């Protein structure tokens, strides 16, 4: 279980952005998980439809704190933070990517009050009042942070679609642990998938960034 993906205070949070904690909660893992997921989703849908006689659509205005800026936006209660960033904000924030849409791949990772979460599993309305940092907030092409520079230097990217997620996860992790071992780096990014096969160089980049930060 990835501790950093847990909300910092369960009591104040209506939604736990961890699919795994749900699975753990019902005591099922592995192949059975898919079936449970589907049953769960269906049950939720049925429940919602029978309970509510009102239309399920409609938007509400909220203000999100994104990369240090206040960003007003209209969302549906069901709109995820990821979809809000990409499809509703004007101009959009497209660093975080939509890839699996089910909290497995990490391409949509953003920081909520400094902690990495899958933004496809966070409702936009739940992110109100928290500081949201995306990969764009960590550094720009002209002024990269240590992790971003190391990714370029070590060629820790190919197609680049998973890269914002890895960069965000590792940037947050190095704040927690500034001098990690290889094993700790592997553990830190186990919630991020890459298809091109950049893992070894992602590890190298993370270790190099930590070293540079310590020496610099």
């Amino acid at each position: 279980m990835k501790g950093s993906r847990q909300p910092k205070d369960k009591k104040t949070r209506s939604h736990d952005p961890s699919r795994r904690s749900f699975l753990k909660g019902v005591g099922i893992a592995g192949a059975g998980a898919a079936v449970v997921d589907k049953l769960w989703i269906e049950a939720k849908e049925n429940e919602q439809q029978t309970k509510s006689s009102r239309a399920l659509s409609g938007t509400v205005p909220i203000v999100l704190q994104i990369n240090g800026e206040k960003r007003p936006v209209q969302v549906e209660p069901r709109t995820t933070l990821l979809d809000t960033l990409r499809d509703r904000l004007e101009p959009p924030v497209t660093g975080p990517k939509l890839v699996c849409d089910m909290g497995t791949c990490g391409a949509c990772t953003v920081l909520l009050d400094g902690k990495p979460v899958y933004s496809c599993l966070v409702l936009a309305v739940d992110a109100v009042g928290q500081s949201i940092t995306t990969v764009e907030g960590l550094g720009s092409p002209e002024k990269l942070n240590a992790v971003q520079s190391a990714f370029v230097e070590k060629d820790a990217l190919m197609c680049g679609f998973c890269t914002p997620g890895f960069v965000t996860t590792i940037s947050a992790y190095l704040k927690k642990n500034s001098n990690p071992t290889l094993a700790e780096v592997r553990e830190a990014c186990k919630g991020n998938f890459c298809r091109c096969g950049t893992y070894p160089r992602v590890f190298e980049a993370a270790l190099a960034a930590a070293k540079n930060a310590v020496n610099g």
Partner: protein
Amino acid sequence: MQQPQATPKKKKKIKVPKVVNGIETMVEIEVDDDAGPGWGPNDKHALLNHRLTRVDGPLKVSGAAGYTYDVRLPNMLYGRILRCPHAHARLTKFNSSAASKIVGVKAIIQTPLKEFRFAGAPVAAVAATTPDIAQDAARAIIVEYEVLPHVVRADDAIRSDAPNVVEGESNLQQKDKRGDVQKVAAALNSSDAIVEAEYRTPRIHHTCLETHGMVVDYSGGDSATVYASTQGTFSIPADAAEELGLPQSAVTATVQHMGGGFGSKFGIGIEGMLACKLSRQTKAPVKLMLSRYDEFVMAGNRSGSWQKLKAGVKNDGTLVGMQAMQYRLGGLGGGSQAGQPYVYRAGEFYREVYALHTNEDSSIAMRAPGHPQASFAMESLVDELAYKIGMDPVAFRKKNLRDEAYHRQLDRGAREIGWDKRNPTPGGNSGPFKRGTGCAVGTWGGGGNAQCKVEVRVARDGSVVVAVGTQDLGTGTRTFTRAIVAEELGLQIKDVVEQIGNSKLGAANDSGGSTTAASLSPSVKDAAIKARLAIAEKISPLVGNAKPEEILFADSTVTAGGKSLSWKQVCAALLPAGVSAHGEWRADLQGRGVHGVCFAEVEVDVETGKVRPIKMVQVQDGGLPLNRLTMESQINGGMIQSLGMAFWEARVVDAKLGLQLNPGFGDYKLPGSLEMPELVPIIDDEDKREVVIGIAEACIIPALGALANAVFNACGVRVRELPITPDKILMGPNGRKAA
């Protein structure tokens, strides 16, 4: 007035690969025989064959790189596809009136299909103001089907009583038959040992992280721009124009960055066709990116394989005869599978190759189509034979591989993995955690073809642009394109800007079959040489009237006759329009035919069947490495994708329902950070060919065999069906756990 006639140039005929939908075939073409300056020795480059960080790196690590999926236009609608939930069904009712009443729904169109032959076939598409509303509308469409008989498993499809996937046609279609079965029988009779075995590989998915799709920027005017996640910028405009009812010249395709293709992204696809239709109907821009579920059920896959092989060997290790029954499992498509005995000399051989159809979406090209499947089976068989006659597997391979390149690579890889230290007895190590080592080889073409037209422009202020419509899939095309020009003009990478990914720029080939580097780089080099000579001619009077070809461009300085000018001074002497040079492909600057070997070490827990990959080494040649850093990344990528195929990845289909059971990242297991072994990518610098050859496909071929053979060496269990999951290991050496 008579057109001036060019002096006829001396021509020569050469064979080049032609790629159709990612599948490579060889064609003969005629090219000029007047080779210009070559690349020069591989170890004498200023930039090429060095470790160049990719030029789009800063954009990609900061979220600033714009992918098709990131495009958002004013008034843009979002498309969603409704899919058939049955493996075989006929449409009996379609009612979209409720769906069309949902606020925000702008268009609903039906596909022309009335009979669906795989679960996931597109039935209809919706355009709406948000992705969620589009999804709501797709759900609200009422569809009824008459469910028809289906077959989704190869073992079922081959039976004579199986439902026909295509009416009136046998599910089994012969594709190739070669060799003399009698001669093989005689050879097998004369052999000292025979192995007969069946090997299977499942269908696996590309799982491009950026799904297939496009954004059609059309608002009813007389032109359109199509943003496409594609491996072929020029594979888009014609079909998009047809769907939009526009002339092809009015449609521009663009792809600046793309999130993975691996062979699956050529042409506009069904999703692109639907996006164009929706845009045409609504006169509004439409973005239609497949959902992850869509991507699994209809964006293509690597065909599965089922191979029945039998081979005989002499006690000295010489293969004397082999026969093969090869089934390509491509669903509705024909699938692909390299013919056996793959790269080996097998003496007499006989093979029959069939496509075995099922009610599944068609397989499409995937990185080295058909090769990993064939390589896994052949390399396993070779290994089995070597163990059977008690011969070292490396020595056995050398005995039966003609090409010297494999011999040196096998030696290199063996040193790197510590082959001599392994226990040659399968399962011979004590304790429950048993280590083992295996190896395998692979080959690919990687040659180019004459399509790329490149322009290099040098302005009076010294700025340099290299422009061509090609695309960078994450392979590093942008970087080597810049580097070639920078090196030719004696500049640094940062002094050159590349413009790519746009069909209004110079022609380029699709990136399939590892043909991009060998097709593009000669044209870039040619344009850069011509730009250099044009500049040299212009400034010759400033450097003592030196001959243009004798003027040296290096270190941002131009030198001749004892005089030096800075690059700025040189460019200031150009005409106001600067210099523009056009490059064409030169056959002599590229080559074909690469070799690679992979060695793998694994640890098998024989009590749980769990395999832990420890180390993988791949030695890969490729002529002139344009960029060592990105080439190593490609080799890593090949090893890692093979690792997925070897141990985790498989499309799981329910025979009764005809549905894929794992169409998502929660259940389709990709290689992750915790499973990574130590990876050692080695560029084989003993390859002295001064030509560019593509290597991307080659890197994914040999690792499957190496890993499977390592598992056998570790625990003595020969798993002949991928993926190598714990259950198969626990079944034991004879495929059945001892009672």
